């Protein structure tokens, strides 16, 4: 029996309604709120945001994090994915262990690293026991911005590389084995095979992974909040502070819109830069 033409629309209707109610409506409200200066339309909230003491630092820190964390994660995930592909035994177990951080919430991950890196944490205890330091050393305060930055990078890489890995592993598995075998016959080196076969065929997966991770990286919050508190201002952290501590919802909304604009811009850039052949998207 042929299906009625409206059936697919009916089936996706609940999720569309859900998205509209819990995503589009609040999004519209946030945008309106950010332009609400008390007496109608105004850019006052944006001016307040841009003129704030922490704004340039927050912007710089967020971009610095994205620029350092994303390539590290993609590189690591690529290496890990290729290693998995070569494994014949214990592959499932290794994959399972590597993806454990996926099940840990952002804040919990931040707290785990805080327990390691704070003054009386595991790292200092270990260094002290080996006689490498004479007492508690601080890494996570405003006087050690570089150490704090790398602590955040470390925690973020630990926490969120797994999602890139999963996407890339799925992509690697889609590459037909015949291509590799053919390359072997022509005597291609592993590096050539990686460059000429794996990487181009992995482009759709890479694109998805990059978009997903970059958008999430611009929204980083809990890990930074746990490790650095106010010492490492970031955009979402500032939105939180304006909303929760300063109780100025307008400026908080302006920050939220800024994060959205940056995320959209990053997505467009990736879509253009890693243009995927429609045939490869099958």
């Amino acid at each position, binding site marked *: 029996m042929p299906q009625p033409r409206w059936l697919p629309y009916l089936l996706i209707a609940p999720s569309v309604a859900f998205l509209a109610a819990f995503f589009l409506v609040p999004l519209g*409200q946030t945008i*309106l*709120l950010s332009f*609400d200066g008390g007496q*109608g339309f105004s850019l006052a909230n944006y001016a307040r945001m841009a003129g704030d*003491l922490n704004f340039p630092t927050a912007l710089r820190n967020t971009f610095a994090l994205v620029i350092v964390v994303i390539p590290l994660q993609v590189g690591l995930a690529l290496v890990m994915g290729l290693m998995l592909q070569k494994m014949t035994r214990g592959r499932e177990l290794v994959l399972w262990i590597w993806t454990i951080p996926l099940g840990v919430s952002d804040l919990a991950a931040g707290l785990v690293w805080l327990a390691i890196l704070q*003054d*009386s944490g595991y790292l200092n205890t270990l260094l002290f026991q080996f006689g490498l330091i004479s*007492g*508690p050393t*601080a890494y*996570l*305060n*405003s*006087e*050690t911005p570089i150490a704090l930055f790398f602590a955040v990078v470390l925690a973020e890489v630990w926490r969120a590389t797994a999602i890139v890995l999963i996407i890339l592993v799925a992509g690697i598995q889609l590459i037909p084995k015949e291509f590799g075998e053919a390359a072997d016959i022509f005597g291609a080196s592993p590096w050539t095979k990686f460059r000429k076969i794996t990487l181009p065929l992995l482009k759709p997966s890479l694109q998805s992974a990059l978009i997903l991770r970059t958008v999430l990286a611009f929204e980083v919050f809990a890990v930074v*909040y746990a490790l650095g*508190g*106010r*010492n490492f201002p970031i955009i979402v952290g500032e939105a939180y*502070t304006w909303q*929760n*501590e*300063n*109780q*100025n919802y307008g400026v908080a909304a302006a920050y939220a819109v800024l994060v959205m604009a940056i995320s959209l811009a990053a997505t467009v850039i990736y879509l253009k830069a890693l243009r995927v052949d429609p045939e490869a998207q099958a």
Partner: protein
Amino acid sequence: MKTLNQLAIAAMTAGAILAAPVANAQDLVFLSTQLRPIDEAQKVREVLLKGAPKTTYVVEEPPQFAVRMKAEQAAGKRTISLMGALHGELQPLAPTASLDAIDDVAAKLSASGIPAGLMELGKLGTSTQQYIPWMQATYVLVVRKEALPFLPAGADVNALTYEQLAAWGKAIQDKTGQRRIGFPAGPKGLFARFLQGNLVPSYTGSMVTEFRSAAAEKGWTDFKALWATVNPNANNYNFMQEPLMAGEVWIAWDHIARVKDALTAEPDKYLVVPPPAGSQGRAYMPVVAGLAIAKDAPNRAQAAAVIEHLLKPATQIATAMEVGFFPVINAPLPADLPAGVKLLADGIAKTQGAKDAIVALLPVGLGDKGGEFNKVYFDTFQRIVLRGEPVRAVLDSQAETLRALMTQTAAPCWAPDKPSQGACPVT
């Protein structure tokens, strides 16, 4: 925009109702911004409310408290009968007619010995009683005894000045290599209260008007010198009891409730002393929490009974012993007080009784701009102390922000500033 606000409030109301714990229609809902940590809330439920009418004790962060009260009022459906919050948190609710006049409850408590000044605060500038003072606290310095040998010659630990505190911190740093002074300057710390209630008024005798005066400039310059001896982790500290207990910090400023665990765990190790003095005197900030009944409360009579219960001498003393907030009524603390609580009680008495004491009240009349008022002080601190910007220039520019805020809210001056006609001026 009005529709938008209504939509937002409706959404928040839905959230508030969904999030509310299940309570029977007869049960009284008591919403409090105070005694929030789980162990303190449990003590309220199990000890302090014992013998009171059946009550569901719910806690909420101060910003959410204001949102929830507003949302319930807009929705026309009250679930909360009784509220416990700080003076400054209840204050913005008075003009929106969220609070019920409770002169009847005040009359019943007239013999309990609540000081008239405190009772007057509970009128929130209106002609009727808006809240009943519930319990009080303040901010003190806690000193670990290890620090005493380093005290500068001639300094009295019970009457320190900011210069002496800086010299003390420097002596400790020189001799031990560690910076042992601590402030709760982390995201949840109450450091802005130190700047508003202790530092600035100690030098200027004012919290707002003299914000950019020469005296304020001197205060900030002194504090910058003091900060060089403050533990670099101060920007991560929220409560000072943990760093005190760990021995990471020897001299800490904080709210008494946030150092109580350290003092009750090892009372022999500590002293509690008044905050330091500046050129004008020793400013300190009394903290008053009050109990108010919501307008159209579903259980008004029961709420009034709970207020009476919480103000009984036995409950007030239990409050001091269990959670470290002190009585507002005339209730002599028993001689067998736990040693840690006794330290706190003595510390408060020394602070309030200091010859050069200046009372600096919590910001009043700012409505929902209290957070931005704190930000003015915290940003000033960040710019002068953490970023090393010139003191004069920072005070001038931050004074502009403060002036705009005062004009916008039209908040008149509060102590220690002299009463003003209209918005409190920034000279």
